[in-house]
């Protein structure tokens, strides 16, 4: 840790206020170029604590930066992780007001719902599949609080990895019935297919991202509780959205989920 407790509290309050008031800010490493990974997660933890203290419920976690190519580009060997609270959830088929957000983008994801706790270290694809109740399609709405998406990884982690909203829907299926690597993903915006990929785009296998999340939490004395929702990472590039857009995600064998923006 390079930051003192007061700085952590102040930065968490600042970033959460930006989120709640839908306004952007410069990346926090401009002010604190020496902050380290622990500082970044400490700020995120403080944002989580603030929310839970006000009555929010922790419903799950998310993984970001889950492509090997991007990790190599950024010079890291692990994805980044954030938390999800109940207020982030949007219901299937509903509308989301763009004015509540700063500059939203959407990412298609394979969502895991757990039936048993997962505690690292030592979690792998097998333990994740054993603890998974079912998988289903999910659209994550990311909304970095940083101006023009100009950030570095530590700033992103402190900002809860740009977490903003998510919607899950479609068909829930046991993971054992699917080959998650080759599961195809088609993202449509206003009826036009705009992004195509397959599950292996997430760390070679989406369950690998969940395993790394469990190991990351385990190293910090936490676990993924049973019944958690886990967004395993964007399978394609994030797609920018604006008011009036209708986004639909289709996943092979898992049906579709959609979200409208007004």
């Amino acid at each position: 840790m390079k930051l003192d407790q007061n700085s952590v509290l102040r930065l968490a309050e600042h970033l959460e206020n930006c989120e709640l008031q839908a306004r952007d800010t410069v990346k926090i490493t401009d002010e604190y170029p020496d902050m380290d990974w622990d500082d970044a997660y400490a700020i995120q933890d403080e944002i989580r604590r603030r929310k839970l203290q006000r009555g929010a419920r922790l419903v799950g976690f998310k993984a970001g930066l889950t492509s090997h190519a991007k990790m190599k580009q950024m010079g890291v060997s692990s994805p980044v992780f954030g938390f999800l609270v109940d207020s982030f959830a949007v219901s299937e088929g509903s509308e989301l007001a763009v004015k509540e957000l700063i500059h939203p983008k959407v990412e298609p994801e394979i969502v895991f719902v757990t039936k048993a706790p997962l505690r690292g270290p030592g979690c792998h694809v097998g333990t994740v599949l054993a603890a998974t109740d079912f998988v289903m399609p999910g659209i994550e709405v990311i909304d970095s609080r940083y101006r023009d998406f100009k950030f570095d990884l530590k700033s992103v982690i402190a900002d809860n990895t740009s977490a903003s909203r998510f919607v899950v829907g479609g068909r829930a299926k046991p993971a054992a019935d699917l080959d998650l690597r080759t599961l195809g993903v088609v993202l449509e915006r206003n009826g036009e297919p705009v992004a195509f990929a397959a599950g292996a785009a997430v760390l070679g296998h989406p369950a690998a991202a969940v395993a790394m999340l469990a190991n990351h939490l385990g190293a910090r004395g936490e676990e993924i509780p049973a019944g958690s929702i886990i967004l395993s990472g964007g399978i394609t590039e994030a797609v920018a959205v604006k008011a009036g857009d209708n986004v639909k995600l289709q996943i092979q064998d898992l049906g579709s989920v959609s979200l409208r923006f007004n």
Partner: protein
Amino acid sequence: MAMDSQLITQLGDELYEALMARKTLAPLTSRHAEISIEDAYRIQQQMIARRLAKGARVVGKKIGVTSRAVMNMLGVGQPDFGYVLDDMIYSEGQSVPMDTLIQPRAEGEIAFVLKKDLIGPGVTNAAVLAATEGVITCFEIVDSRIHDWKIKIQDTVADNASCGVMVLGDRLVDPRKIDLNTCGMVIEKNGEVIATGAGAATMGSPVTAIAWLANTLGRLGIPLKAGEVVLSGSLAALIPVTTGDNLRATVGGIGSCSVRFV
């Protein structure tokens, strides 16, 4: 105004000779700016006629320029097509000698094997499915007889849609049993996942691509025949290849295809 047939023949011959000698030509469009797309198809016919005269047989067709991104790059609003000849086809497990190619790149595709003729106009997606014996995962190894791939649409059309060779997987699957729109594709190069995609990447659906081809060929009086193999267009990024590379493409619900370059 259409180009005179002597020039058409001459350019077709030049491309054929470049193919045989594994040499490249300056872009045809840099020497003859007036070439239309129709002219380019006549040049392609000449190049193919030379190969048929040497004993090659037509065993199928290929569709190219099927993604929005590539259409935009070439400034066109529709795909193109070329002929598949028997001497272009490799099977799963065979190696492709690099010295038979000039500047190859690999595309992961879904190939259709027809059990009935498909003669446009008026071919619908339903007719395509009814006429399809099965689908196979395949690699098209595209190659260009034009310097450094500096192609305009007329150059690639004249050059048999930049077709090189292709490798067919060994699982033929009934298209009624899979959703070709959402099926995912994972491409690995030397064991590393380097690209993913999904069926919708080619014209919204591989079935739509085949219907487009049947209708386009129908207007030219060319049938798609029972038994032919038709390549429906690339589902993921183009992969540069070199001697020693080992590629594998896997399509969810169909199977995989692998190729080594020696």
